[in-house]
């Protein structure tokens, strides 16, 4: 089968088309990256030092307004940082100490102390942040909320026995 020779006109059409498409993609990339979210250092989104392990009694929930999370210490001593944003529609979920649970004011989603959903419409447990404990100091990385389908014992972080 003899190949049809490409005419100069066809070649130029394709070349122009490809160059134009490439330029459009590049311009699109520039626009997208120009408008992409900007992270401000030192604000919500960085690593936040919560305090010494001893300052959080077992079975306590401490709100961190700047960091937008609750530092939860479970009755067994395990630490958990819960993002306060409701997993339903993003309202700020307050801790209700009398009931011992989080109740969202927007659509009445209810969460256990460890973030587990008790009452829909929230589709999944409260997101958590990574907690690290070094030399008895609790640090929370608010950079990336960790989404989870179920709560699990492995979410909890324990202080070293020595400290």
């Amino acid at each position, binding site marked *: 089968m003899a190949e049809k020779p490409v005419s100069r006109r066809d070649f130029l059409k394709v070349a122009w088309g490809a160059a134009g498409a490439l330029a459009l993609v590049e311009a699109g990339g520039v626009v997208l990256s120009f*408008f*992409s*979210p*900007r*992270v401000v250092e030192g604000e*919500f*989104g960085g690593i936040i030092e919560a305090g010494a392990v001893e300052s959080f009694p077992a079975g306590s929930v401490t709100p961190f*307004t700047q960091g*937008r999370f609750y530092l939860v210490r479970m009755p067994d001593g395990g630490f958990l940082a819960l993002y306060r*944003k409701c997993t*339903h*529609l*993003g*309202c*700020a*979920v*307050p801790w209700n100490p009398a009931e011992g649970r989080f*109740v*969202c*004011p*927007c*659509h*009445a989603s209810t969460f256990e102390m460890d973030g587990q959903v008790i009452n*829909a*419409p929230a*589709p999944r447990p409260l997101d958590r942040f990574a907690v690290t404990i070094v030399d008895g100091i609790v640090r929370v990385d608010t950079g990336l*909320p960790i989404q989870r389908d179920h709560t699990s014992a492995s979410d909890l972080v324990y202080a070293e026995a020595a400290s």
Partner: protein
Amino acid sequence: MSDELDPRPEDLKQRVWESIQRDELPPRDDRGRMRVVMNNLVLHLHPSKVAKPTLKFTYTWGLGGLALLLVLLLAITGVMLMFVYTPSPETAYQDMLRLQTEVWFGQLIRNLHHWSGNLLVVVAFLHLLRVFFTGGFRTPREFNWILGIILLLLVIGANFTGYLLPWDQLAYWAVTVGSSLLSYIPLIGEGLRSFLLGGPEVGAATLTNFYGLHVAIIPLALMGIVSFHIWRVRKDTLTVPHKLDGTVDGAPDGGQIEKVTTLPHLVSRELVFALVMTGAILLWSLWVNAPLEAAANPDHSPNPAKAAWYFMGLQELLLHFHPVFGAIIIPALGLGALVILPYQHFDLSAEGIWFRSRKGRRMALLAVLAALVAVPLLVLLDEYVLDLPGMLPSLPTIISNGWLPLAALALLLIGYYDMMKRVFKATACETRQSVFVLLVTAFIVLTIIGVAFRGEGMALMLPWEVL
């Protein structure tokens, strides 16, 4: 030398005037009137002549023109507000307070902008209904119907982005809740949301993003597409109103449809209506202030936290369906149905007749009544009796609270369609209209329930608890 021979010295004043306005004013005859319309930048969006029956006010209700008037009012007041407002979390709320207490007529200009914006959502929606019920979307007007839907979406986008700018509690949490709807779009939702907000939560970046969209991107798009929309109306002409028996409404004994010049017949009507409506909006804005709550506080969600009123129908759906269905699938189905609507078969003899036919009117009325009864019943049923996820704990909620109820509703709708078609021996066109009326009424009822009958924690309030 001919110029030496010119006997008439040119009048400079006359020359300057004619360089601006080329046609004689006021025009001497119909020919002159048509020429003025054709040669005028603004007026030439109109045809030079229009069919006389289309001028009847109760046919169009002036809704398209009213929408355009509101866009103009919004542009003027909006540009004024730009001079006294800075889109930054530190200053925005202070600027609002200063606007209302220190700036001369600041409260009035804000009220005009606020109420015009809200009214525009209503008017654009009513305009859509009018065009649907008089069959004004059929060939050759299909694409203009699509342009209209794009305009409606732009209007809602403009409203939503503007909602944030006062930076009060209402603004902050309505936008938080509203933008969270996006994150339920599979795969790209979360990315889309954080792109729009400029971060994980509503903050300083969101305010500048929304400001840019609200004062530049959306108005420019709106202006361009509105011009296109009106120009298309000129090209396609208006549908001519017909009576139930098929005769032209407003023509003597179904004879030749009389055409009259746009100037003055249409233009004068437009000006009078615009003047009356401007007066009405002005009066309303003098009496009723736009709301302003406490400054935005990201630490404290108010209870209940509601989205803007035009999203309350969606928020109400969200209380009954899995979020993917309430926020994405059901609205997308509705929008998709609106887009393919003009490409469906349509009985052209029904064009220009309100609600298609006598049968069509009865079926539409029945659909309104059906929705008025069924929707509150379904809401009550879901609130107090039916708990699908609880009854089917082994199924994921996306099935038990998504596919399952949606399939049930779809079956009900198909049953309704079939029954109406049989009982009334109606055409597909009349039956489809009846389904459309049913769904629109259902959406309106849901919106009313969301706005008026949802209290603390979005709990349902029964009518006697509201008062």
